[in-house]
């Protein structure tokens, strides 16, 4: 779900020759909103916004009816409500989305093992190997759309192309509830009228730099010498963009990219300078990160904290432990040390985050025992907590200092 929904529609009279177009990009339409509407059919066709109402909440998803008013994901809720006061606001229920997401990913995996999920609601598929069994890529795309609609009652859009980034642009073009094939010989024709901001990897900053050079469309970009782009944007970015402008993208669909890091962060409802409250939040985030590490069978050696001041300036600090861990208490103690060493005593913070990097599989990771270590420690306590949570739900057990009304926020 990107903020850039303003790609102009081009005539989709590009034909449907999908020869040499084995890459599908499947993207759920207004995913969270669509899932919520399954249970609220009376709201279909009306503006609906998923997000936590309140000063700090942001829009997580919105129906197309709401988007028509200018509402988009990641927009502050207060602004969205001003733009579309009639909209029904539904607070997110992440468990439900995860369940549908898992089901949708299963549909993909039934088609090919070459599935690269890039978010809970979108994935790339390389169906080059499924051709003989299931037919042409466009036909497979339609089959996926039909299955998702039948099983979950939600729609998705499919881009079909020869490379990942063109497929992604194509799915965005045909949203909602569409399918677009960009034939191998129609890539340049498809790309060049698009604004440069539509390219993958061109963010606001890069777009501004390009517009300053008078480059507005992908076509403009394609006609600029590579050397100029390299000078303006840096060696790697310049080379990369020049290739994209001609539709060259060598990145393959890589199924199951292992997690490089696992993190969680929280924006406070109001800026906080009480170190006690900040440490409590670090504990809560450490618990969450550790639970996800254990659930995924990971351990990690590097702990980092992210601290954002009220003026949005952000610092991160990290430390590598001697032994990899998946224990919240160890992560928490390290996070507190890092916070203490960051010199932000009594500084008002807007957001804190905890992340564990340098991951490896817990099963391949042996642990050096230390002298006098207790046979059962925090590791075992937390494993027991996992079991309780699996059986009785997420609120079954938590550290005593965290038993309190939870404030609003989004998981990242």
């Amino acid at each position: 779900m990107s903020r850039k929904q303003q790609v102009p529609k081009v005539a989709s009279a590009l034909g449907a020759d999908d020869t040499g177009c084995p890459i599908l990009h499947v993207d759920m339409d207004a995913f969270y909103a669509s899932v919520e509407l399954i249970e609220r059919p009376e709201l279909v066709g009306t503006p609906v916004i998923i997000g936590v109402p309140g000063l700090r909440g942001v829009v997580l998803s919105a129906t197309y009816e709401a988007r028509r008013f200018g509402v988009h994901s990641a927009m502050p809720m207060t602004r969205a409500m001003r733009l579309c006061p009639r909209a029904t606001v539904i607070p997110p229920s992440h468990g439900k989305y995860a369940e549908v997401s898992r089901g949708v990913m299963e549909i993909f995996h039934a088609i090919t093992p070459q599935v690269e999920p890039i978010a809970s609601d979108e994935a790339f598929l390389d169906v080059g190997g499924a051709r003989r069994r299931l037919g042409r890529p466009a036909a497979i795309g339609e089959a996926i759309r039909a299955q998702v609609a039948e099983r979950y009652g939600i729609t998705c859009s499919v881009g079909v192309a020869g490379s990942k980034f063109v497929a992604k642009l194509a799915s965005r073009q045909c949203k909602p509830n569409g399918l677009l094939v960009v034939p191998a010989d129609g890539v340049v024709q498809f790309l060049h009228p698009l604004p440069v901001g539509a390219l993958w990897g061109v963010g606001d900053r890069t777009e501004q730099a390009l517009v300053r050079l008078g480059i507005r469309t992908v076509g403009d970009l394609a006609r600029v010498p590579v050397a100029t782009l390299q000078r303006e944007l840096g060696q790697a970015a310049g080379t990369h963009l020049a290739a994209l402008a001609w539709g060259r993208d060598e990145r393959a669909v890589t199924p199951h990219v292992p997690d490089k890091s696992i993190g969680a962060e929280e924006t406070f409802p109001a800026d906080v300078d009480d170190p006690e409250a900040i440490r409590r939040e670090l504990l809560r985030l450490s618990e969450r990160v550790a639970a996800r590490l254990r659930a995924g069978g990971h351990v990690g050696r590097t702990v980092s904290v992210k601290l954002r001041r009220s003026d949005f300036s952000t610092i991160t600090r990290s430390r590598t432990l001697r032994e990899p861990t998946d224990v919240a208490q160890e992560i928490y103690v390290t996070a507190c040390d890092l916070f203490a060493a960051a010199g932000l005593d009594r500084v008002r913070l807007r957001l804190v985050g905890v992340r564990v990097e340098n991951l490896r599989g817990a099963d391949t990771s042996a642990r050096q025992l230390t002298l006098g270590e207790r046979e059962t420690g925090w590791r075992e306590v937390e494993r027991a907590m996992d079991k309780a949570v699996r059986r009785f739900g997420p609120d079954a057990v938590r550290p005593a200092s965290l038993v309190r009304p939870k404030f609003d926020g989004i998981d990242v």
Partner: protein
Amino acid sequence: MMFRVDRDVLAEAVAWTARSLPARPSVPVLAGMRLEVTEDTQLKLSGFDYEVSAEVTLELQTGEPGVVLVSGRLLAEITRALPAQPVDLVVEGAKAVVTCGSARFTLLTMPVEDYPSLPAMPPAAGRVGSDVFASAVGQVAVAAGKDNTLPMLTGVRMEIEGDTVTLAATDRYRLAVRELKWQPDQVDISAIAMIPGKTLADTVKSLTTGAEVEIALSSTGGTGEGMIGFLSGGRRTTTRLLDPEFPKYRSLLPTEFSARAELGTGAFVEAVKRVALVAERNTPVRLAFRGDEVVLEAGSGDEAQAVEVLPVDFDGDEINIAFNHQFLLEGLGAIDSDVARLQFTTSTKPAILTGGKPVDNETIPDYRYLIMPIRLSG
């Protein structure tokens, strides 16, 4: 001031004193080595960095009293390179001139009055054979921590009870304990000292020229800012003590075991080194003891693997246990015996490595190296 001394004697004394000079002195004057010719024609060379002091005294044939401070590092390099002939040092104004055979060096001197005075030697507490002491310290210091963020674990703990000295060090992953006899000046002495491990190991190694080392302790009470001194063959050195805090290790040393294994140390070391070739840092070497053989393995399914089988004299419950290979090798290197004896309880409890076959199983060996296993997942 002037003196003449044999090149070998001077070079050795200068090199020994220069050992304790700081590489990056906090104040420039600490890079200096102080040379003093006393009224009774002795030459004293000294160095100090506020933590460690070193002083060596040589008898001179000829000399005129006086003091000079020169760059210790430079003097050490010069004396090492000089030909084997008598060396003359003469102070001329602000310069010190070193001549030896046809070579002549002019060194700048540093302000002696700025040089801190060395701490006084604490009162003598007793004596120990220098070789025995050096080997005992070496056996224990191997287990001391190298992480300066945990200073308590970088020290060697010295416990003195009458005629017994117990040395212990741990980095939390292993613990080395050595007991030895010494000759205390007072038979009922009881003292504790935490000595920086690396300094102690370097010091005692350099004091094996004399037959005995005299140990001097400033506070025999066992608490507070203390100092320990070592004196041997004209060399004296003092070291500031660390905080005496230390884990209560005696209760951590297991006394009951479910299995015992004895192997030839040399073959064991060779085998561990070989299989460890495929083990990355901090990854384990796994040992499976079965009947009369032990299978050593390292590496896992998706990496390189190594396996080797050795005969073993084994008694007790079969056991699979894994260790950091570096810790195991350092222990095997420290036991100073042809036969290595390992004793276990379970694969997650500490194992004890000792040397040789004690005459009977009741005797606790002089040296014990405790090693914490690595817990394998699953």
